[in-house]
Structure formats: C-alpha cells, structure tokens
C-alpha cells in the first residue's frame, strides 16, 4: 500500500514537471488579456487566431515545412541505401563510413550552421534556402540511417535470395521484398526526421536571410520584441501538430518500436 502510494507520487511529480509547463502554455494561449500570464485573465481564442494573421509566422512555417519534408526525403534517399549497405554487405571501411554518417549527431548544430554560412554560403553564393536544405538533410541523415538499419536488422537476408531464385533481379528483389517490409521503419524514420528537422534551432541560427527564416527562429525573434501570448498559442498549436503525428504513427505502426 505504502510503496503503491510512493510509486504514484513519484510519477505524479515527475509528470507534472515534464508536462505541466505544456499545460500552462495552453492556458496562457487561451488568455483574453494582452500580456503573457498564468493564470490567464479570462479566456478567448483571439491569440490563436492572431497567430494565423502574423505574416512572418505564415512564411516561416512554410519554410520549416519545406525543409522538414524535403530535407527528410533527401536524407532517406541517401540514408536507406547506406543503411542497406552497412547491414547487408561486407564492405571495406564500414567503420569510417559509420563514423562519418553519425558525425552530425556528435557535432552541435550551431557549429554546422556557422561553418556552412562561412565556407559555403559566403564563398559560393548559394542561397540560404539551399544551405538550410543541405544542413537539415545532413542533420536528419544519421537518424534515417539508424532507424532504417534497425528495422533492416529485423529482416532476414534470405528473403532477397528467395526472390532472386524466383526470377527477380538484384534491384527487383530490393524493391519487391525489402522495401515493402521496411515500410514501417522508413515511415518511422520519416516522422522522426520530420519532427527533428521541424523543431531544430541551432543549425538554422546562422542560416537566416532576408525573408528566409525557420519557424522556431522566427518565434524566438518575435519573443524578443513582443510579450503577448501569440507565441504561446503558436507553441500550443505546434505541440498539438507533433502530438497528432506521433499519435497517428504510434497507432498505425507502433512508432516507438523504431525509436
């Protein structure tokens, strides 16, 4: 009885600490007042509506969406074959390749952003958008390789051989029996990559130019000037978006198996 109580007390306190602030954000977002406060002064949806009216949020949301979708897709295009090679082939130099591919996890994003700005954008004059795209692709790449490798390892190698004996070419076997069985892993990698890229701040910190800014950077910039609940409203909306994606993923493919 006693340990039962302790157990729930610990869980209650921990979860309050972890989730509580998020609930407060929601309450603050629904405030009718003009300043950020909790408990809020009355309730209204005006700040939620205001979010959609702020031009720069709309623009930077678009930028972040594009980056998250195409950066993750590009990372998968590079990462799936790499994961396949690392799990299925005896290749010379597998260890250095693995190390190079995991580097983006070890190197802090802010450094990557700065390095790309200084040695790619400035000397070659590529657009900020392209640099952001490349940086986000590189950032997501290790996750793509890791998640896809994990689900590849659960898949027996001999099904490809069986497919070849039944008339498939090497590539045909990959597309017909490997890819369909990796669908869950690839989708999980996409979601993880999408969320990572969308929420990413440090990489994009230095990579912002006129009219090109990712949403989190734009939110920080807005906060520095305004002290109204619109950022709270936006935060709450984004959180619900992430939750909806993760919930759907968990529901339909047991997402947490892959992470």
């Amino acid at each position, binding site marked *: 009885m006693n340990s039962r109580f302790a157990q729930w007390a610990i869980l209650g306190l*921990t979860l309050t600490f*972890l989730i509580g602030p998020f609930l407060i954000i929601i309450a603050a977002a629904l405030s009718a007042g003009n300043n*950020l406060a*909790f408990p809020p002064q009355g309730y209204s949806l005006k700040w939620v509506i205001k979010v959609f009216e702020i031009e720069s949020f709309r623009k930077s949301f678009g930028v972040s969406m594009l980056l998250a979708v195409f950066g993750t897709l590009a990372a998968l295009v590079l990462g799936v074959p790499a994961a396949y090679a690392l799990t299925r082939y005896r290749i010379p130099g597998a260890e250095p390749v693995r190390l190079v591919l995991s580097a983006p996890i070890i190197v802090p994003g*802010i450094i990557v952003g700065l*390095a790309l700005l*200084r040695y790619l954008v400035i000397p070659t004059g590529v657009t900020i958008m392209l640099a952001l795209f*490349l940086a986000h692709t590189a950032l997501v790449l290790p996750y793509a390789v890791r998640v896809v490798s994990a689900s590849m390892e659960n898949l027996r190698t001999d099904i490809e051989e069986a497919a070849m004996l039944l008339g498939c070419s090497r590539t045909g076997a990959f597309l017909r029996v490997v890819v369909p069985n990796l669908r869950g892993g690839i989708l999980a990698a996409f979601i993880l990559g999408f969320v990572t890229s969308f929420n990413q701040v440090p990489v994009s910190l230095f990579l912002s130019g006129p009219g090109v800014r990712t949403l989190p950077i734009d939110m920080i910039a807005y906060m520095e000037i305004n002290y109204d609940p619109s950022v709270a409203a936006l935060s709450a909306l984004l*959180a619900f978006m992430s939750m909806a994606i993760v919930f759907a993923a*968990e529901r339909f493919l047991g997402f947490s198996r892959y992470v």
Partner: protein
Amino acid sequence: MFENRTEGLALALPAAFFAAVLFILPVGILLSEAFRVGGNWSLTGYIEFFSNERNQTVFFRTLKLGVMVTVVSAVVGYAAAFSIVGLPTTARGRIFGLVILPLMISPVARTYAWLVILGRTGFVNKLLTTLGLADAPIRILFTETAVFIGLLQLFMPLMIISLVSAMENLPKDAVPAARILGANWLQVFTRVILPLTREGLVIGGTLVFTGSLTAYITPAILGGSKVLMLETLLYQRVTVANDFVSASVIAMILIVMSFSVNVLLKRMATARRHR
C-alpha cells in the same frame, strides 16, 4: 551478407560523401581557424580564449550545469523508471507515452513555458506573493537556476527512457531474490539494480550530458546575456564581435567534449558486458 564490395560501396558512398563534404569539411575548416590566428599556425587563439575571465566562467558554468542536470536526471530518473516498470502493462504504456511526449514538442515551446512560470509576473511569483512567502516578486528568470530547470525538463525524458528500457531487461526475480537474501533497499539498489542497469544509465547520461552542453535555446531564453553557456557565448561572439577565433575554440571544446563523452561512456558500457 552479400560479398559484392563494389555494389556495397556504391550504395554507402553517396551518403558518406554528402556527410563528409557538407559536414566534416566545413566544420574542419572552422576548427582550424583558432590555430591560424594572424596567418601562422599557433595556439594563440586558445591561450587568449582561456585567459579571458568571462570565457572561463562560461566554460565552467557549462560544465557545472551539464553535470548537475545529468546527476539530478539520474536520481529522479531511477525513481521514475522504477515506478514505471512496476506498473501493469497498459498503464505502463500510457505513462511511458507521456514521458516521451515532451520530446516531440518543439524545444522553443517547451522553454517558452518556463517564461510564463518563472517570469517576474509569472505563476511562481504570483503564488509566492499570494501566499505571503515573498513581499516582492523574486528574480528567477535569467539565473542559473532557471537554466538548470529548463535543461532538466528538456533532457530528463531521455534519461527515463534509457533507464526504463534497461530495467525492462532486468531479470524478473532479481529484486525479490535479493530481498529474500536479506538485502535492504539501499543494498538492492547498489548491488543489484545499479550494476544491471549501468548500460542504460551510461546511455542516458551521455544523451543528457551532451544535450545540456550543447543546448542553445534554453540558455538563450532563460539565461539571456547574463547566464551565458558555451553555445550562447559562441553566438554572441560571432554576431556581436565577428570573433571567429573564439567560435572556433568553442566549437572545438564542444566537439571534443561530446565526442569523448560518447567514446568514454560507450567503452564503460561495453567493458562491463565483456567482463
């Protein structure tokens, strides 16, 4: 395993080449800047950086916060993980989902919440003044405490997740067996649980420690320019003073620290397994 090496390399190389050219090359050049102050190869950049008192403060503060967040995460993490593992299956899944949930929410949103809570007119101050515990609002925001709280909330889930998966692999009867053999709870923890979950602790510790070291948003929002950490210092040096030498030194510190923590802890975890 397929034997065709050319095929394997052809599949792996595009990704490796991409990471090398877009990642390792530019970062490498950046790292070399601190050694090339004034056109000559030297350690001047490092000597100057570390002789500056403010830089020292920031360096040690970053380390201190990293260690504190890791230790507190571990302590709370063990209690929480132990409670989660003891739940019936469905409840366990739900609670575990709630622990993972914050990881999917934008760190900006999560940090922003603390502004509302810890601010001058925030929730905590209102509570304190209403209850008469404080006459005037106290300053919490822009202190190390605020940054600590923010980091703890940001990274603790990673520790809990690692510990829960380590505890799930614990032999089911290990704890009761130790109890029957006469161990008290402290002994059960130090002699049974700790050794058996060490790998999870190491993985969680690595994630939390390197995460705290390289955090940007939390110190930026909750610490401001008063409580700089290495990443916010880097940002400030570059944007305010165009000081790429300091940026290069900080980059080196961060990379070396997170790399060595990764390697060291990985070795600690595997050394045990092979014993």
